[in-house]
């Protein structure tokens, strides 16, 4: 019997909606989970990205310095990297702040509404990048699955095909928004 493929899912600058859509596969997830080992994910306890992963689904865009560090490490350690959802593919809602720049957004959120304790939190938090960008602006991406979120059906199709060793064809299926 061949070894199970390893699967990782990652949550960067996004809302977790794509992970919700992944779970929305309902009972099909049970059948599918026989074919992979989930080695790293917001859904499991593993905090360090393993050295070799067959398939990594990434939700969210690159919005801060930690995302940027992570994406290069993940790319190095992943065979097939999938941009899952509009934030990963286009920047989407995460990138709505781009025309204003990071400083203006921080001032607006932490400065303007606050009273006496107005300050931008810095300790223990990664610095925001001035512009939120899609994953493929930084690393090579093997497959793009647009959608906000991508439907459970299309994630099921993508995972089934990848686990069977095929590259899914999303033309005519993939839809932004």
């Amino acid at each position, binding site marked *: 019997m061949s070894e199970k493929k390893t699967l990782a899912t990652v949550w960067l600058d996004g809302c977790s909606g794509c992970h919700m859509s992944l779970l929305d596969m309902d009972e099909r997830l049970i059948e599918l989970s026989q074919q992979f080992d989930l080695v790293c994910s917001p859904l499991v306890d593993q905090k360090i990205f393993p050295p070799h992963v067959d398939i990594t689904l990434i939700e969210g865009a690159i919005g801060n310095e930690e995302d940027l560090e992570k994406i290069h490490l993940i790319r190095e350690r992943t065979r097939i990297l999938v*941009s899952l959802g*509009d934030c990963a*593919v*286009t*920047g*989407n*809602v995460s*990138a*709505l702040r*781009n*025309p*204003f720049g990071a400083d203006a957004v921080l001032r607006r959120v932490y400065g303007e509404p606050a009273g006496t304790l107005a300050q931008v939190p810095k300790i223990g938090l990664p610095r925001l990048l001035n*512009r939120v*960008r*899609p994953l*493929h*602006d930084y690393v090579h*991406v093997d497959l*793009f*699955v*647009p959608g*906000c979120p991508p439907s459970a059906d299309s994630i099921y199709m993508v995972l089934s095909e990848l686990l069977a060793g095929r590259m899914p064809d*999303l*033309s*005519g*299926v*993939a*839809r*932004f*928004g």
Partner: protein
Amino acid sequence: MSATPAVKTFVIDGVDASARPEQTILAAAREHNIFIPTLCHLDGLSDVGACRLCLVEVKGARRLLPACTTRVEEGMEVTCNSPRIAAYRQMTLQLLFAERNHVCSVCVANRHCELQALATSLGMTHVEIPYRFPSLTVDASHERFTLDHNRCILCTRCIRVCSEIEGAHTWDLMGRGIQSRVITDLDQPWGESDTCTSCGKCVQVCPTGALFQKNRTGGQGCKDPSFLPYLRTMREEP
């Protein structure tokens, strides 16, 4: 007997076809059920060749030609679907998405947008060209409608319907190149326009979420430009 033949014969995607005099490649292709994507073309309005999505190959022509503004000539050989054309269509579509802020998920026209639908039907899964993320304004000064420059693709349908059908000519185009944008009157707020009749035709023909009705929110901005051919027909000389 007329000197000009009533019908022109030509070849389109390897198929022998015919066209009436004055008929464009686009019109003839549609009659022969050959798909050519369009965004700025709309039945009932004049054609301007602005969006460049309908570019086709014409044998002997050194450059690609827009099907919506090129008339069929006798003996013409036209290719509408080839790997070269497909690559150009993808590039044109990607340029449109990268130029302004098209955020489908939060757009009023989500699922009712011709640009979004075309991305799906042409199999565009991502944009290779870096997004510009420009800082653009929204004009909400009109009582009933809103203009969002973030979603505008400069197809000029609003300008043409306002001028050709409504006869008001409230809309126009200002600036050049990347600075181009649609304006009302002499770049005054839409709500202060003296010429706008508030008929809403521009909103109905807008292919994206650039023009929308005020009481609509995310995904509710459906459009219905089907009134156009009727208006045209009604107004034709008997």
